[in-house]
Every structure is written in structure tokens, then in C-alpha cells.
């Protein structure tokens, strides 16, 4: 099954779109061999991500099978996942490290 959205690794909870997707579009997504349709809530531009399952505030956001950041607010299935609702764990620790250095 091919799709306009790619799931990059095991346990990913986001999919990356390979063309601009308009709000309300149903996008087939294959997660761990099972394909289902997810209705996207906002416009998702090429290369951007949407959630393939509900992500609670503070939960790990997973792409390429690895943690790319933590949700800063609850994210619904089909919602645009980007800088407005995800923060880098790495960058947060970096800011902490700089404060400690000062």
C-alpha cells in the first residue's frame, strides 16, 4: 500500500507528507503493517508532519523510530506536529547547560 504520507520507522507516532495536504483530507497511513485513513486537521505542507495517534502533553514524539522531541501540548490524531507543539529535548538540555555555565 502506497501513500502520500511516510512513516519512517517502528513506533513512529508522526507521518511525513510527500505533497501538500489540505485540511479535512483523508490520508492512508501504514503503521506497523496496518493501513488506515487519518483525516488531517490543518493544511500540512510538503515535508511536514501530522500525528498518527493522540499524543499527550509531555509525551515523546517519535520519527525514524527515535525520539525527536516532547509534546508541549496535547496533540490530536491528524494534527500538524511542528515547532508550535513540540520541543527538542536536546535543545532544552543545552539551554540548561548554558545557564549552569554562567
Amino acid at each position: 500500500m502506497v501513500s502520500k504520507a511516510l512513516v519512517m520507522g517502528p513506533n513512529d507516532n508522526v507521518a511525513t507528507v510527500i505533497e501538500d495536504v489540505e485540511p479535512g483530507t483523508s490520508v492512508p497511513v501504514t503503521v506497523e503493517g496496518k493501513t488506515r485513513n487519518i483525516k488531517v486537521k490543518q493544511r500540512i505542507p510538503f515535508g511536514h508532519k501530522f500525528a498518527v495517534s493522540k499524543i499527550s502533553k509531555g509525551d515523546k514524539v517519535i520519527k525514524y523510530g527515535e525520539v525527536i522531541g516532547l509534546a508541549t501540548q496535547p496533540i490530536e490524531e491528524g494534527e500538524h506536529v511542528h515547532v508550535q507543539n513540540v520541543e527538542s529535548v536536546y535543545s532544552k538540555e543545552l539551554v540548561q547547560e548554558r545557564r549552569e555555565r554562567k
Partner: protein
Amino acid sequence: MSFQGFRRDDGTVGTRNHLLTISTVVCANQVAVNVANNVEGVVHITHPLGCGHLGADFMRVFSALVGFGRNPNVAAALVVGLGCENVPAKLVADEIAKSKKPVQYINIQDEGGTLKATKRGMEILLGLSEEASEFEREKCDLSELILGLECGGSDATSGLVANPAVGVAADMIVRAGGTVILPESTEWIGAEHLLAKRAINEETVKKIYATVDKYISKVLSLGIDIRGTQPTPGNIAGGITTIEEKSLGNICKAGHSPIQGLLEYEEKPPGKGLYLMDEPGLDVESITGLAAAGSQIITFTTGLGTPVGSPIAPVIKITGNHRTFEKMGDNLDIDVSPVLEGKETLQQSGERILKEIQVVASGKMTKAEILKNREFAVYRAYQYMV
């Protein structure tokens, strides 16, 4: 899973049967070229190095020359030196001989000039060539392969399709019992904690952090914190949310296998599975380090396209950018852009890459080989005496 390779006396398996002429010093380059150009089937390495190297820098150059000679893609080698250089031809030849393959050396000063050295070199290669041409390919297991992973000239399609597709192939090679090497340590910054989590022992964890810290500190000493500038505004506009995601777009080409260890530049993996290699991400230096470490085949993912290859290891170019594939088809081997058109899954692309690796390992030439791209460059330890 198998391929057709050349079994060597030391038990390793080559995907090529090259005769290699190695110049040990810049002063011997022309004789090495003369000899190689006049004998069929000979590749050569020339470079601006070979004299005045100290300590670790000497070892980098020495290990590159020895590693190339020992690589199982090389059937036999001729080492050409001047005679008074800091990287002696005899020492290089003696080290290569430990791999039990035929190797000889000449020094231009001993032979009595360019013409005599060229003649002597050709005589030696004539004999080595007859011997090497009798080797035949035989069925070899995929577990005998050491695959090197490189990427360069990246664009948005690299992290989206080309690297994840190569990751699928890399995982299949590791599952088949083979070995994979991921270089480009500067590009681990931002994902070192994720790599460390996959390391099989504490020693490797420490090495991963120490390696990344080394580069971060070097740049910090210039007053710049490269970590704080990532991802760039352009990356964010393109959909990359965090530095972790950006770095993973590169290292995902190594798949999801556990990390067995972290190698020094040019170091041969001591076992099977996925290894990291400390190398700062310059394309040709990276390919050279991989071949010196014994990689018999290399994949190279690119978005913008590049012609580079290696004198001894086939380099398979893979792009996810269809326009680049159309524009630079003479430099590229595999187009994985069908994933972006929804015509193929990443899994299918990865399987296609694995198949090409097997076919190329069995003798099919890559574009870089056909067009004689045989670049060679060593990642120096220090370039200047201070």
C-alpha cells in the same frame, strides 16, 4: 542471501579484483601513473602526501595506504616510493603482505630514475596481472560484506526518502550477518544521545559522547555553539522541527540495528554488525576511510548529485530527487523518488537498494567506476607544524 565474490587467502572476500599501484609519496606519483597506465586493469592511488608527517598524522596516511592494499577488492599491489620519504614503500608493502596477497615495492632512487623505475614497475605488474587474472568469482554469503554508508550534497529528499531507504537495506545486511559502517561523526551532533542508547556497551557510549564533544568543543573555542543554531529557519520552513530530527535524517541511513562499537578513522571493524566511524563528513575523505577499513562496497545518498567514487570500492549513488536523477543520470545509479510519487514504499526502495548492492558486489559496474571516478583523500590529523 549471497553474491559472487573473490575469496582471498586471508579469508576475506572481494567484490572486485583490482591490481593496485600505490604511490607512497607525492614525488613518486608520476611513476605510479606511468606504470598503471601501461598495464591493463591497474588502478592507482596518487596524492600530495607521504613526507613530513608526524605522529598521528603519519598513522593516518600510512593506514590509508596499507588499508587500500589490504582491502579484499585488491588482488595484488605494487608500492612505488621515492626512497627517502617519511612513509617508506617497504614498510607499506610489509604491512600489506600480512593479508597474504602478492605485493611488491620499488623505490625510484634504488632503480635509478623514472625510466628504469617505470620499466621495473611494469615488469612486476605483468607478473602480478597474470596471477590475478586467474582468480574466479564464487558464491559468497552476504555476511562477508562490509558496507560503507556515505551521503553528500544533501537536499530535502535525503532525509525523507534516500537515507531511510538505505537504512532499510543496511538493516537487512546486518540481519544477514553482515557489517555496516556509519561515518560522518560531526553529523551525529543532536542525536548522540539516541546513538548512545543503541550502543551495546558502556565503552561505546563513552566513545560516542567523547567524539561528539571533541567537535563541539573545537567550534566552541571559536566562540560559536553550532548546536544552538539548529535546525535553521530554512529547515523549520521545510518541516524539520528539532535538531534531533535533522540529525536523524542523516543517521537513519544506518537503520535501527544495535551499535557494536565506534571505530577510529580507517579502523577495520573487529566484528559483524553496525559500527560507527569517527570522520568529520567530507565526502572523499569519508569514502577513503571506509575503503581503508575494508569496505568492499559503499552507498552514497545525494540530493544534488556528485560524481565521486573510489579507486577500489564500487560506490552506488542513490537519490530521492527525480530532477537530479534526470539531470545527472551519468553520475547516479538508483532513483528512489518513486516513494515521493506514492508509487513505492520505503521498504520496497530498501529492497531494491539491497538487490543492487548484491548485483554490484557480483560485478556490475557503478557509474562512478565506468566514468573512472577514483578520488582519494585522507582525513589528516593535523595539517601544519606549529
